[in-house]
């Protein structure tokens, strides 16, 4: 075959064990074809319960208005927008893994991309809830769209970052969904052709869109994936950049910062990878997919976490330095008195953020820690907590003390319905994830087969011959039959 098939022995295999194409199909389809376990039912029930509590919380807010939340003057954006930015950030890892790593030809992405993309879509769905319900009169939510109306027509303000956000998030959701589903079609066909039960044949028959595996169709599929990856790469960077513009284009001390776009994007990747770890460390165990999502995968993602965590750390220090160096009293006050000062009302949140996001991920400089599943799981939770506090620090500590000291007195704590809304989005997220992990192949079957003969453990051994070749011999063996 072609030269590209050969992979050096130095690289660890991406698929462990003795596998052939059929075994790959069997392994990945098994959880879909078996009855759900007790554990699945317990997890699913808890998620649905949380979702119902979330629906109740939102119903309270819609019925009685945003007064059900403890927002006040000056804290107009509290938990709600914190949660929005947090979920959007988490929704960045999937597309990063599937798009950017595809362009960089990172073979390891094939083990985790399907689940990460699903997670992205669910996270963006959760994120979207917050600005929508925050509108209060949600029945007017369609006012954000530019449509011919009887008010003039009065168009939306295309110069406003909040409107850019509407376009960015909805485009991101649509494109991620298309990317994910176009990758799923061939795997749905695999499930369809194995189905024994009537409902399975019907369901996967419809979901597979009539896929046959024709070479021409694969050729177009490859072209589609590549171009969608090329489009998604700037898209994923643009989304959190635009979210950061919601803050950075204002003149509020603590928000008015040009470093926000790269800082938000790095933070988004950081928190997204943490959520991927949280889910996959559990998923690989419960669905016995350890041979596909190997320790190698976990380690690589931990490397991304320590890298992006450190970028975020540098960003925190840079904005701190710039606040002091700018010699703007208000900017420096926001940092020194509202954040750094541990005895200020919200000082604790700044130090939780620093501890979880900057200090604790440094443990991943050690290989042993990167390959320890308990440490990985614990750290992934810690990073998610830290990244929630980052958004809380940015949003709340920047606005709870405005220029008028008489409005400083109110300490903002969320009501049960604000917390309930947040818990409800966990319900939505995990309900979707549980359904996904039961009815969809959590690993891209076709993509694993594609790399199997290059990166599978039992095939890599057979490459030893090439390792001993001289360059000329290698050329002779491989160049001639490549067209």
């Amino acid at each position: 075959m072609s030269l590209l098939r050969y992979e050096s022995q130095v690289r660890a295999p991406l698929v462990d064990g003795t596998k052939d194409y059929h075994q790959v199909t069997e392994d990945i389809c098994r959880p879909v074809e078996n009855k759900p376990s007790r554990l699945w039912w317990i997890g699913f029930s808890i998620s649905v319960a949380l979702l119902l509590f979330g629906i109740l919380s939102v119903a309270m807010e819609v019925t009685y208005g945003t007064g059900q939340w403890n927002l006040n003057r000056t804290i107009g954006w509290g938990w709600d927008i914190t949660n929005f930015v947090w979920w959007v950030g988490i929704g960045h890892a999937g597309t990063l893994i599937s798009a950017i790593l595809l362009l960089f030809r990172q073979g390891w992405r094939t083990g985790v991309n399907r689940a990460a993309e699903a997670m992205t879509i669910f996270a963006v769905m959760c994120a979207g809830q917050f600005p929508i319900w925050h509108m209060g009169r949600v029945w007017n939510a369609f006012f954000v769209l530019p449509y011919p109306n009887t008010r003039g027509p009065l168009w939306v303000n295309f110069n406003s970052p909040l409107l850019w956000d509407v376009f960015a998030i909805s485009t991101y959701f649509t494109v991620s969904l298309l990317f994910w589903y176009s990758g799923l079609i061939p795997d749905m066909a695999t499930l369809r052709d194995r189905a024994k039960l009537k409902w399975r044949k019907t369901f996967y028959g419809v979901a597979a869109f009539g896929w046959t595996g024709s070479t021409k169709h694969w050729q177009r599929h490859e072209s589609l994936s590549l171009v969608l990856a090329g489009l998604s790469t700037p898209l994923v960077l643009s989304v959190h950049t635009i979210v950061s513009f919601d803050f950075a284009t204002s003149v509020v001390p603590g928000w008015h910062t040009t470093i926000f776009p790269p800082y938000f994007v790095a933070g988004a990747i950081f928190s997204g990878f943490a959520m991927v770890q949280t889910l996959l460390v559990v998923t690989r165990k419960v669905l016995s997919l350890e041979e596909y999502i190997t320790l190698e995968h976990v380690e690589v993602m931990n490397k991304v976490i320590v890298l992006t965590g450190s970028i975020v750390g540098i960003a925190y220090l840079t904005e701190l330095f710039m606040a002091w160096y700018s010699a703007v009293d208000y900017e420096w006050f926001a940092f020194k008195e509202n954040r750094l000062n541990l005895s200020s009302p919200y000082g604790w949140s700044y130090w939780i953020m620093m501890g979880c996001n900057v200090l604790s991920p440094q443990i991943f400089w050690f290989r042993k820690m990167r390959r320890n599943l308990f440490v990985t799981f614990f750290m992934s939770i810690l990073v998610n907590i830290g990244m929630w506090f980052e958004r809380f620090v940015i949003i709340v500590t920047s606005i709870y003390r405005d220029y008028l000291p008489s409005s400083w007195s109110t300490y903002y704590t969320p009501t049960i319905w604000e917390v309930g809304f947040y818990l409800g989005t966990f319900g939505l997220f995990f309900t979707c994830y549980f359904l996904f992990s039961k009815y969809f192949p959590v690993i891209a079957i076709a993509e694993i087969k594609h790399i199997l003969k290059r990166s599978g453990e039992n095939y890599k051994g057979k490459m030893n011959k090439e390792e001993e070749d001289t360059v000329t011999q290698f050329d002779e063996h491989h160049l001639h039959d490549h067209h």
Partner: protein
Amino acid sequence: MAKKKFIVGNFTDEAVLFPAVKKVRRAGYKLHDVFTPFPIHGLDKEMGLRDTSLHTAGFIYGITGTSTAVGFITWALTIDWAINFGGKPYFALPAWIPVTFELTVLFAAVGMVLTFCWLCQLAPFVKKDHFNPRSTDDTFVMAIECTSATNEEEAVKFLQAAGATDVKVETKDTGWWLGNYANDKMRFEQ
């Protein structure tokens, strides 16, 4: 829908499949298609398929998105209802870059996926004839179309000699129709 006769052979190894494709084409058989469980790089070239122009379509959709965004925003904010936002120019092009970019991506992605589905005839409830259900699992299935010039027995032997197993002559529909798979016999029921 056109029903046609095919010689269908199965392969389990790409290393056997590639030379077989070459032999079949050289011998002058009409190679209908090869169905594979995953994309095999180079197989399209080997089969003599031309490159897809799907990416060109994507580019056209993309610039359609760009011009739609710039055109519409310019019209809305400078001609239809010009509003003075903080004393800035009506034609505030830099501020429109984010929306323009997003619409470019949106148009390109949605357009390409729809075109892909159109070209490959993929949609929910679409049904097609299977040559071998194992082609979505671990088998590369080659179908040679029988023409008036094809000697079936000879072609079967030729495929077997090229390394194919379980070679059969089958009549299959090459089109698509609406239907579901509920009553089909699937792989593990045969």
